[in-house]
């Protein structure tokens, strides 16, 4: 299980490696993109706050990463007319001339274009492509993609089923939740996160549900962007590592390219320690104790409020969901 860490500046590569990152990913807007396609984003995230500034910075990032592979996101959910050939040329340059090991892609049209160009083996299918079952994983395996990033809102048994399809699997491990299914959200963060205002207006849910919904959204938003002892207080799948290990998950994603280096470093250190415990045979309880000892905020763990995968904890008799 590799730890995949985000970066937005080449100077972050070395400290993230030192903290325990085995893989790095970043976003980069191709030169000339804005002239041709205006303000459309090449990535899911804002290029101004989450992307590398240019190709020189990418070269420095790859050099600073050394043997650690660097992946580049081209993961907008769709692209404007004429963009696919443009991005295909850019993708070729990245992997053939710039030392980029792989491309994180969401749009099926771009996946198909990369496949036609013989580059399917360099594609990591983004979580935005919503691969959520073993049949879909097998579909992408048959297209030749190297890895499938599973979306956030899957239960552990569902991850296990997808991982059995015979394609390398990556899952979310730390930080930055998403209220809706990311790949099925047809809104744009360029106008601000649509989800933050969901359910808040006239005609929304009744107050009790609204309150619980607001609390859940707050946890997904890294508890209002808070830290505890320098660790980001956000969605977390660390206690699920033993099951993710057994499922054969290849890579563990730490999210948040926009975050400060200090937050990213501390997240990677926390992931590294939890993985060490999991590989040594520790169970969820032992991992949780170690995480809380480092990070604090035990109350958020007690209620499983930060859990990406709350099903790691057995639901006590009589507390099962009834509808």
């Amino acid at each position, binding site marked *: 299980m590799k730890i995949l860490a985000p970066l937005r500046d080449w100077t972050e590569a070395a400290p993230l490696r030192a903290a325990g990152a085995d893989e790095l990913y970043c976003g980069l807007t191709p030169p000339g993109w804005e002239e041709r396609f205006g303000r459309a984003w090449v990535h899911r995230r804002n290029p101004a706050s989450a992307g590398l500034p240019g190709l020189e910075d990418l070269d420095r990032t790859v050099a600073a990463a050394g043997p650690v592979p660097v992946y580049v996101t081209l993961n907008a959910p769709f692209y404007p007319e004429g963009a696919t050939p443009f991005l295909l040329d850019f993708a070729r340059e990245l992997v053939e001339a710039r030392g980029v090991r792989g491309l994180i892609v969401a749009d099926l049209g771009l996946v198909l274009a990369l496949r036609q160009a013989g580059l399917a083996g360099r594609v990591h299918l983004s979580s935005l492509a919503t691969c959520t079952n073993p049949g879909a994983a097998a579909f992408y395996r048959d297209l030749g993609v190297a890895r499938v990033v599973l979306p956030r809102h899957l239960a552990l048994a569902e991850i296990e089923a997808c991982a059995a399809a015979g394609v390398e699997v990556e899952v979310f491990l730390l930080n930055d939740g998403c209220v809706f299914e990311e790949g099925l959200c*047809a809104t744009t963060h360029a106008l601000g996160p649509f989800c933050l205002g969901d359910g808040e207006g006239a005609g929304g849910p009744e107050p009790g549900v609204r309150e619980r919904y607001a609390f859940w959204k707050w946890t997904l938003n890294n508890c209002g962007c808070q830290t505890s002892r320098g660790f980001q207080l956000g969605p977390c799948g660390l206690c699920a590592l033993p099951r993710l290990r057994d499922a054969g998950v290849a890579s563990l994603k730490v999210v948040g390219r926009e975050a400060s280096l200090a937050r990213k470093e501390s997240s990677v250190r926390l992931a590294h320690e939890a993985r060490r415990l999991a590989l040594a045979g520790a169970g969820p309880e032992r991992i949780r104790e170690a995480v809380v000892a480092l990070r604090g905020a035990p109350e958020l763990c007690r209620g*499983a409020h930060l859990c990406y995968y709350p099903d790691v904890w057995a639901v*006590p008799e009589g507390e099962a969901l009834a*509808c």
Partner: protein
Amino acid sequence: MDRPPMMEYALRLETPLLLPPDPRQWCAAAWGDRLPEGRLAALYFGTEFCEDRLPAPGEAEAFCALAARRGLEAVLLTPVLRPAGLARLDALLTALQAWGRFPAVVCNDWGAWRLVRDGHPRCARRGGRLLNRGLRDPRALEAGASGVGAGAAGGERSRLLRDFLREGGAAALETDPDLEGGFLGGAGGLQRTLHLPFAFVTSGRHCLGKAAAAATPRGGPFAGAVDAPCCAPCRRGPSREERDDTPVPLWRAGNTLFYEVPEPLAAAHLAQADRVVLHRRPAP
């Protein structure tokens, strides 16, 4: 531009009901005046957004029987699926097949696509509207997003996807009106199908209706309930919601938000459609 002499219509049903003499009467009266004349060709049932709303075999058979009695094509809508949902779809199609029913299947999930292709080849496959990940943000609509429907002329935007579907044996490609346009492309082997009058805005696994109806498990009624069963309180219908950041009214239907598309946006997409699927109300 290649256009059929008359529009072909389909109705999306939530229960097997009496059908109107003119399909355009299925949705709000104002839409009837905006739509071209045409004949009813198909009945749609099932769900595009929530696997908990996949019909039971008996319910699906009733839709197929109604379609057969009227000489119409039966079309099963299917959503993005988790492993259990994919197994349910397989069981559903197997049961229908045993009764001699072979509905066309709208696939919004590549696992479903593969299942129907390999396991239920007598069912025609249609690419669903969730394959179009184009923008439907009501805030962008209000802000006058550039290129609303502007891609309609070129049709290059989704050409590789359309080629892939056609070569893979698909019968059709579907969408609702997005803000980019051009997704359905020109005529060329795939029937181009447009859903009206509602466009989806966003969807997900977490559902306020389910949360309201449920007890609170560990992890809360949202994260803690992703794989919990649901009694589908959304069957009672959508609820209207308003937001401070857009004047466009929304409907919440189960796990999905919708808005009614403005007429100019619908018109830009209608010019590319061979079939229109009319929805009486937003439904997941």
